[in-house]
């Protein structure tokens, strides 16, 4: 293990998230960072790289593959899971919430791991926030389309103009304490059924 910078492997199928994390780690002075995105022969690659720290996202089924490292007969260097140290419940909770897990080779000091993990958690959270915003924008766009189509149906069936159709949907939504999108969706469903 190098005294300056531990060797870190990031196992993540999301290239964007891995890039965000890698960049953060480099900025913080961790130079030995390798990203593995291909899950084929994962263990062989990890053994070849011989890292001090392995970071893997919790939604990756390959986490179970890493569990083989704990089988003494095979591993050269024995890693321990981050979760082994129960004294640090808050950081375990934070990492699970962020969706990341870490495996750390035995012997690496806790104070050297902490900044890596903290950085990892904050970058994972930042990525989740970005993803969230993207999803929200997408669903807002979808909702706009649904509302426009429902408006068209109302205009045709009830002989309303665009403004009136919109007002009708909005007042219905307010009365039924529902979202405009939901009202619009019911109109689409109903018109589908009544076709």
């Amino acid at each position, binding site marked *: 293990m190098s005294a300056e910078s531990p060797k870190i492997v990031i196992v993540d199928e999301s290239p964007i998230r891995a890039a965000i994390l890698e960049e953060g780690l480099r900025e913080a002075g961790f130079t030995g960072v390798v990203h593995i995105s291909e899950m*084929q*022969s994962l263990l062989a690659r990890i053994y070849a790289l011989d890292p001090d720290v392995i970071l893997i996202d*919790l939604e990756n*089924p390959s*986490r179970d593959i890493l569990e083989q490292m*704990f089988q003494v007969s095979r591993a050269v260097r024995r890693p321990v899971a981050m979760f082994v140290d*129960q004294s640090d419940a808050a950081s375990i909770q934070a990492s*699970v919430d962020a969706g990341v897990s870490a495996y750390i080779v035995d012997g690496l000091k806790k104070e050297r791991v902490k900044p890596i993990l903290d950085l990892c958690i904050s970058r994972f959270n930042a990525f989740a926030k970005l993803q969230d915003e993207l999803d929200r924008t997408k669903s807002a766009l979808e909702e706009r389309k649904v509302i426009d189509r429902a408006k068209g149906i109302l205009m045709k069936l009830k002989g309303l103009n665009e403004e009136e159709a919109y007002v009708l949907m909005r007042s219905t939504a307010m009365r039924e304490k529902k979202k405009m999108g939901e009202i619009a969706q019911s109109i689409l469903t109903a018109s589908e059924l009544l076709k």
Partner: protein
Amino acid sequence: MMTPLHIGFIPLVDAAALIVAVDKGFTAAEGLDVNLVREVSWSNVRDKLNIGLLDAAHLLAPVAIASSLGLGHVKVPIAAPFTLGINGNAITVSKALHAAILHQIDGDRFDPMATARALARVVAERAKIGAEPLTFAMTFPFSTHNYQLRFWMAAGGVDPDEDVRLVVLPPPYMVDSLANGHVDAFCVGAPWNSIAVDQGVGHILHFASDILARAAEKVLAVRQNWAEKNPEILASLVRAVARAAEYVEQPQNRAEVARLLAQPERVGVAADLIRRTLDGRLRISPDGTMRESSRYLLIGRGEAARPEPVQAAWLYAQMVRWGQAPLSAEALKTAMAVFRADLYDLSLKRGRATGPVAPEPFGAFAGPDFDPSDVTGYLASFEIGRRAS
């Protein structure tokens, strides 16, 4: 006031009792508001259960024991008051390995001793010509799949650590890995074996029930201290799951069970594939050959749901045999105490008088009968093993 519970599961057919308990409203009828959380790895299920993000989980029976013993990981005592499934796995081999085994076989191809010996000959042939060792995939180091594969091949003279490569592979990757030649065989639960056969990339060589007539596969797991703090909630949960297990086993309900499990947020594969597993009637070859077994997967049938401590003892003995755990009387006791037949009986209000008769034996195809009071003697009878003596 409903009690909210978070319960984790892996999308496999043997989560049926848990899924049906929730989706048929049996848990709600017991006053439980269950949020079923679909997980992608056993590591996730174990860790989230350990740190309390999950109240209960569909868990590999050996993981419950390993966690209680602190093997390779943090020690968190687990209580298993219900067995969600007995058996249910199968060994699928590539077309090439299937042909090689049938070429070498001397005897019935459904006889695991005949196939294991044939495998030993295939392995020897490959070694002679300097070919790469065969690769077998299973789901987790502490899994019944791992022990079933090892038990089977070792009986034929194949050392699972020396003569072949035995690797962990997440179930969703197994069929592709078999198709592209990265693995030659795997042992996994439903529906993955059937998917391999349907895609024409493999043959089901054995049902796990050929190897052991009765092996505890998945349990309903909770933290032991959670069980102590929430006895009423746990009893309600066990009752709901027991009711569901009974429901699953009624042939007239199977179509409905298959439909519920097929939903994308549950197991998420075609209902027809799930149905085959529930019926124990599987297509075993791409040419359409069918095979049937009444013991393929037992959910609640024949006292399958009662967690018998002797089953935990057998699993612990496998951990010892393969060098995952040292042998000690204390560890054996701890392992057996994970399987809480007492909580099962208590929850279902079954006293000693109405309690079950002695459970069926393991029915292993090789080796002596298992006796939990003599694990040393039992293990000494096997030639191949990694036991640290």
